[in-house]
């Protein structure tokens, strides 16, 4: 049974359509990523799904109940980490996390480990008003997850965090997933989409892609690339020969030459022959799948 089922959501602010025909189904033990540029409708989708806002059209059901009719025990299973963490400036970090736990009727003995997970054990007594942006975000995360929710809405949880901390947090997400939690995560870090079980790309309120990360490259129609290493003094001559052979789909990237091709294997064989014919020795040759950045760009551009 899905923990979240949203169907055909539409939300309009004035004349601006923030979200159009948005549907989402989230199963337990899964992470769904909402990706898209700013103003794409990610936060609107989150707010509608967790019941903070009402759609102009469509329905949202959590734990098989309409979101507006959830019981207290249903809400106890949900947690939200907003884009700007909702913190009480006058509290310390520890008090803030304890406050969240007590609101859910929980004991506060898990606070230390919660703070430890987000690297805030040393700063437990720091006042929120004196905390950095990163510390605030981690405090919000600890407060949202200390309640051990079954469904977590995280609106850009890793924004502003360094790569090491981002990695720790995603590891924690995966741990929660392995314990059965479902997560809806928005992010602007395209590479984080690869960590999700499913990715939805939103642009101007419309879903332009909805697939597993591995399927996104295929659906983008973006070709694999062949990367060829040549001696630096042969770079210009090699690039000229390959540009003629591949009709402009060859460009330099450092001391390497990159080829774009639908069939990477035959392109690699063809390029080897071409360079051998002009007496250039090849130091390396590899085929590379397109990056998510490229996939995202390609999908967005294809819709423009």
């Amino acid at each position, binding site marked *: 049974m899905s923990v979240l089922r949203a169907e055909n959501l539409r939300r309009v602010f004035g004349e601006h359509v923030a979200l159009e025909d948005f549907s989402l189904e989230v199963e337990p033990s899964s992470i769904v990523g909402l990706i898209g540029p700013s103003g794409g409708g990610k936060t609107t989708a989150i707010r509608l799904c*967790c*019941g*903070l806002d*009402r759609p102009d059209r469509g329905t949202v059901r959590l734990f098989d109940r309409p979101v*507006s009719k959830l019981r*207290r*025990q249903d*809400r*106890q299973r*949900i*947690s*939200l980490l*907003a884009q*700007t*963490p*909702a*913190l*009480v*400036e*006058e*509290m310390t970090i520890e*008090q803030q996390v304890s*406050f*969240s736990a*007590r*609101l*859910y*009727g929980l004991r506060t003995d898990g606070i230390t480990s919660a703070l430890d997970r987000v690297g805030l054990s040393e700063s437990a007594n720091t*006042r929120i008003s004196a905390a950095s942006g990163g510390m605030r975000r981690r405090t919000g995360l600890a407060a949202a997850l200390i*309640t051990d929710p079954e469904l977590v*809405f995280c609106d850009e949880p890793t924004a502003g965090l360094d790569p090491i901390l981002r990695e720790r947090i995603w590891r924690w997400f995966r741990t929660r997933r392995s314990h059965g939690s479902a997560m809806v995560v928005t992010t602007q870090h395209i590479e984080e989409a690869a960590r999700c079980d499913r990715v939805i790309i939103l642009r101007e309120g419309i879903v332009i892609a909805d697939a597993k990360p591995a399927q996104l490259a295929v659906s983008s129609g973006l070709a694999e690339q062949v990367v060829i290493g040549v001696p630096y003094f042969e770079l210009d001559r090699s690039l000229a020969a390959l540009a003629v052979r591949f009709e402009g789909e060859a460009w330099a990237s450092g001391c390497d030459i990159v080829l774009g091709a639908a069939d990477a294997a035959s392109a690699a064989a063809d390029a080897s022959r071409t360079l051998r014919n002009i007496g250039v020795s090849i130091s390396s040759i590899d085929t590379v799948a397109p990056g998510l950045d490229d996939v995202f760009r390609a999908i967005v551009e294809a819709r423009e």
Partner: protein
Amino acid sequence: MSSTVRRAFNESSVIARKELTELRRQPGVLLLVVLGPFVVLAMFGIGYRNEELALKTVFVGPSSTPYEAAIDRYAAAIDQYVVPVAYTTDLAAAGEDLSAGRVDLIVVLPPRVEQAVLAGERSEIAFIHNSIDPIERIGIDFAAEVAVRELNASVVTATLDSLLNEASDVSQVSGQLTPQFASFEQAIAEGDERAATLAVLEIQQTLDDMRPAFELSIASVPAQSESEDATTISALDELSRRLNEADGDTSQVELEPIRTAVAELDRQLAQVLSLDAELLARPFVGDAESLVRSPVSAEDHVAPGATALLVQHLSVSLAALSLVRDERRGIMAGYRVGPTSVSSVLAGKLAALSAVGLVAALLLVGLQVLVLDVPLRGSLAAAMGIIIGLVVASVALGLLLASVFRTELFASQSAMIALLVALFFSGFLLDLDRIIEPIRSFGALVPATPAVTGLRNVQLRGSAAGTSTAVTLTLQTLGALAIAGAVLARRWRSGLR
């Protein structure tokens, strides 16, 4: 306690603690909340001149008239309202002084009063001022009225003086009656018809001479009853009638009734002559007596009302801004997504902010009573009941306003509007009887309205606890309605619990 109630209580207490933590960490706010209103009241108490506002007045009138001397003579009688600073014939110069604010009032005295009076006309004294303050205008009108009455009373005094002098003459004339009666009796006894007739004629002449002045005197003297006036006049008439009826036949004249009538006239005249003209002109003096045990100074009168207004404003503002701030920070969103109910959130805030407001209100009243010497004549329990009701109702009103208007600007401005409503419709500034219904009922929207009356009654009149019960109940009802409205507004807006 059922688990639902216990859970709601736990949620509310968590939120209440959060509110108190927020406020405790802002000592500046607490200091401002407690000491700010007290300092304002203290400055008012120290700076307010608790005395009558006498108007600096220039008198303008013709030269060489008795006015100037009269003003000096009567200055003491009107100095409560008017302080004479000059007597001049130059109205234009006086007008410049008035425009420049050097004087408050010009009194223009009429020329030739005697001629006007003889012509049967009243003379007009003009009062010119430059005030735009309606309350001060009422004061000036009142002072002008009092001054004219004093002047008229002075004229009446002078007239009565003159009449009493005439009555004194009458007394001398009436004194002649005794020997005239003696002559008449002797003439009758001796059978001297001619002498008796002459004596009667003399008596009639004397009576005719004294009659007008006597009648005036009788009319000027406030009789103890209408019948007394009638008796006196009828005695005089009876005397004249009997003498006229005799028509020269002295044997028809009965002396005994005449003697009785003359004796009555003498008694009346003696009474008239014993009177004081000043007393006759101003027979009444005012002696206002209040049921309030001790006098109430201006600052005493202002303090309870000001307390009600300040406590309302501070409680409404604290509550409204707290809720709006939580909304802006996203904390309310966290509550809505999680298991915390709207009722628990509002109950927690109501408890914490009421506690803070109550501490501030009690300190404010305590400092007033102990430092500014504002009275607390009624029971402490009654005052406490009203203050608790006021604080709770005001916090509830703040929560309602923040639930309807959800931005900080709206919240602060709506708190200000609530203060304005209290200022104009609570009876703090203006007597509520001056405001027509249903506009007056507008004041019932804010908790300060019953609290102003209630605190004044308890602090200044010394009302007992029982009399404040109605006020406390009204405040509790207002608070309950406001909190119910806040819950409904939030539920309606969010479409949640």
